[in-house]
């Protein structure tokens, strides 16, 4: 019984907590800009508000536009099943593979970009174009940063990676650190943060993610916003658990799980602060400077692979 409960806790942690971490990052950014900022629970209220709003759908759109939010949200849930967050007790040999995670995320992005084109507006199309450009280039860096870990672990399974990396002596930790920097760049790109995208803008010259979902409203917009929050938390969790897997419970005993949960949340908080501080201290880059940054991520991971041998 407790096993099922722990599994449900691990599975529901991301969808339940993701709006909170969006709120935390916004709050820290506000404080850094000398604003008081909204409550960290504001994203929950936003979602609730959107779920109770009426919807407007374009004449020009097809079923792709209508189905996309469900596919996008469901794709983040599929990842939650395979991602070990507070315990490595559930070794998932069915979907707990990092290539599966990356390509399931790509599935969501694929439909997101299609929906951007679907309304036939001027903004959606170029948003999709930019998103797919960045996603295509980011995928290589993402796979390579995880590849560093899988070369260490001799497996592409996430649970096995956590097991191997946590028992790695500190002296040989440098490749993991390099890969983490590479991963962090991808995190910023994939979750639409500075310097790649501005999550708070509706200025047509700069927006990427917002441009694609411009025509959405009501419950579908709520699902998309929530899925974006899930994606952010998934990336933070991958960063916290796979690159710094210390403190994660290896058993299913209740005290171990609770301790692991505390450490997990603390690690997430540290990463959120890092994202917020970074976002406050740098400007958004020109679009055609971004490939250089993504290439940097790729090369860092290549160096890391070279260091392992």
């Amino acid at each position, binding site marked *: 019984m407790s096993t099922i409960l722990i599994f449900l806790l691990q599975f529901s942690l991301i969808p339940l907590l993701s709006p909170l971490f969006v709120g935390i990052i916004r709050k820290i950014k506000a404080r850094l800009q000398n604003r008081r900022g909204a409550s960290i629970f504001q994203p929950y209220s936003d979602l609730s508000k959107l779920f109770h709003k009426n919807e407007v759908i374009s*004449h020009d759109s097809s079923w792709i536009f209508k189905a996309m939010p469900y596919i996008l949200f*469901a794709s983040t849930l599929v990842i939650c099943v395979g991602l070990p967050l507070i315990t490595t007790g559930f070794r998932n040999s069915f979907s707990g*593979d990092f290539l599966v995670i990356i390509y399931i995320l790509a599935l969501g992005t694929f439909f997101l970009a299609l929906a951007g084109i*679907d309304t036939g*507006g001027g903004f959606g199309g170029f948003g999709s174009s930019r998103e797919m450009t960045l996603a295509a280039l980011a*995928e290589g860096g993402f796979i390579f940063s995880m590849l560093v870990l899988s070369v260490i672990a001799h497996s592409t399974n996430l649970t096995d990676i956590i097991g191997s990396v946590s028992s790695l002596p500190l002296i040989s930790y440098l490749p993991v650190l390099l890969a983490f920097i590479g991963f962090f760049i991808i995190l910023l790109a994939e979750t639409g943060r500075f310097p790649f995208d501005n999550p708070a803008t509706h200025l047509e010259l700069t927006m990427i993610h917002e441009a694609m979902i411009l025509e959405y409203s009501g419950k579908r917009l709520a699902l998309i916003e929530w899925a974006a929050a899930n994606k952010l938390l998934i990336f933070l969790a991958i960063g916290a658990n796979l690159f710094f897997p210390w403190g994660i419970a290896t058993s299913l005993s209740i005290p171990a799980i609770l301790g692991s949960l505390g450490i997990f949340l603390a690690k997430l908080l540290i990463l959120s602060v890092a994202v917020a501080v970074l976002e406050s201290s740098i400007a958004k880059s020109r679009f055609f400077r971004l490939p250089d940054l993504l290439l940097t991520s790729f090369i860092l991971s290549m160096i890391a692979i070279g260091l392992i*041998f």
Partner: protein
Amino acid sequence: MNSAQNIFFLALSLFSAGVVFSILSYNKERLANIFSSTFAILGSITGIISAVLVLIYNQSFSINTPSSFPILSYTFKVDYLSAFFVLIISVIALFASIYGYGYVKQYFGKYNIGSLGFFYNLFIAGMLLVVTANNALFFLIAWEVMSLASFFLVIFEKDKEKNIKAGGLYFYMTHAGTAFIILAFLLLYRSVGSLDFDIIRNNIALVPAFTKSLIFVLALIGFGTKAGIIPLHIWLPSAHPAAPSHVSALMSGVMIKTGIFMLIRISLDFFAGGPLWWGILILTIGAISSVLGVLYALAEHDIKKLLAYHSIENIGIILLGLGSALIFNTLGFQSMATLGLVAALFHTMNHAIFKALLFMGAGSVISKTHTRNIEKYGGIIRYMPLTAFFFLIGSLAISALPPFNGFASEWITFQALFAGIRLVSDSTTWAFVLASGALALTGGLAAACFVKVFGITFLARPRDEKIKQISESSFSLTFSMAVLAALTLVLGLFSGSVTSILSKVAGNVTALKNSGISPGADPLAIQSGDSFASVSLPYVFLILGSAILIVFIWVKLVSRKQSQRRTITWDCGTDLTPRMEITATGFSRSIITIFANILKPSKEVEIVYHAENPKYFPKTNVVNLGTKEVYQTYLYEPIHRLITRISELAKIWQNGNVNAYIMYIFVVLIVLLIAGALK
């Protein structure tokens, strides 16, 4: 005699009947179409049965019929590898023929259907002979039948000058390739003394190491031309689109794979592997072909040309599997070599299915819109919902998105490459690292490209008024696409069972005899030494499906009171026109700009002004965006110049003067007589 053999010859006879009856009914186009399709369908079904008998019930067979010519014998041998390719060819031919029955109707009254049926059946029979022939000379005859039949199919729409040009290029390139193949076989003959494949395989120790490598390179150039590896691919993007769409599906789906088949045969079956650099070379070519193929596809706006470039990309991915198999084989990691070959074979099969599906989808659209330019499409999902749905499935599969078959084979390819990074030492590791990088980049770019194709073709508003009058294609077209779309999902979901059959096929190759890996049925798992990886696509499919369902029901419950309103897209206060939608050019322009060093984008601006002077008010403004093909400038043009120069030199002797020629004959005769007398 076993039943697989009888059924295989029944298949060949049915195709022959298709050839004969089509041409006999050349002046009755309806009858010719029925004959051609029916015999091809029946032939394909019997082909599938015979391949399945070999693969599942182990009824391999070989048959030897001597001919009246000394070195030619009509030898067939169907082992697992041949049977696997017979299976792919028959499956794609089956659905292409069903599709063709409806698709060909648009040519009634314009072109000769009888000759189409003649060459179509001949083409399929030729491909079946190519993968089953067991004698080099017989193989070359089959190869030529396949190449020439497909050449005539490429120039079938002969009123379009472009098609004739494309056919011409294909003709030259394929015969240049055949020249290299003949040279490779002649070298084998010199060392082994036979053209029989069995004798060559058994006496391969007689071939010196240098000759082996020479044969390998010649075969790589010859068969690589057919497979469409970069830079030998130039015929492919113009020839494949020129043919009728069901023929394009066959050419892109299976014909180019016969090149892959022979590369596997020669490198791993005849030679049982070779030096390390063979594998590294194949891996490098695979990496280059995959990345460049997809980049050129992004720059392309002719829907069939774009799909043809994706074939180059996928051939690259197949070669990544084959290259790693060769490297592992040389270094003695037999089980990993099997894994690499399984990845190559699996992707060969998957690509055949989703590429045929995509070509059929494109053909379905083209048959209604009569243009291949995707900038003229838009909003077709409303007028052709089924075609759009099946094309979407194909797009997801080719972009390697789970749970479709493309993901399964790319996942195995990734695992093979990752194993290479881990197991192999020194500089070879970096070949694997770069190959993994190429594959990762290719996956992302392919997804971007198919968002472009699907989005611009099927979504948003029509860019052309004519689109609003089109309707869904006929049953024979949608049926073929539906079955192929279902196959992409089925092959993904049952990838575990498929790979266990494929490892049997791979284990049949000389180099990998008894290497023994057995990927489990489900999850699709890979165990090799100290490493392990697994994935279960039925499980992923199930969670994804149930997650979508639960979210849907939940949202329905939460916001059941809310209403939905349909209105126009936000237009900033102006009237929406199709010109406000993003174009395919615009969509891919940012990626092209990023890869400007490789793609060499060109831009020509033509402005016509109202008044010549002063030039303030432009009347029309035309911008031509394109890409330059680098190997055209750096490879083919120098070769062309060299040939021209040699021809100029030859002109001194071959000057068209008959008197001079008679003198040459006279001189040669004298020399021969003297030589004979001295002896």
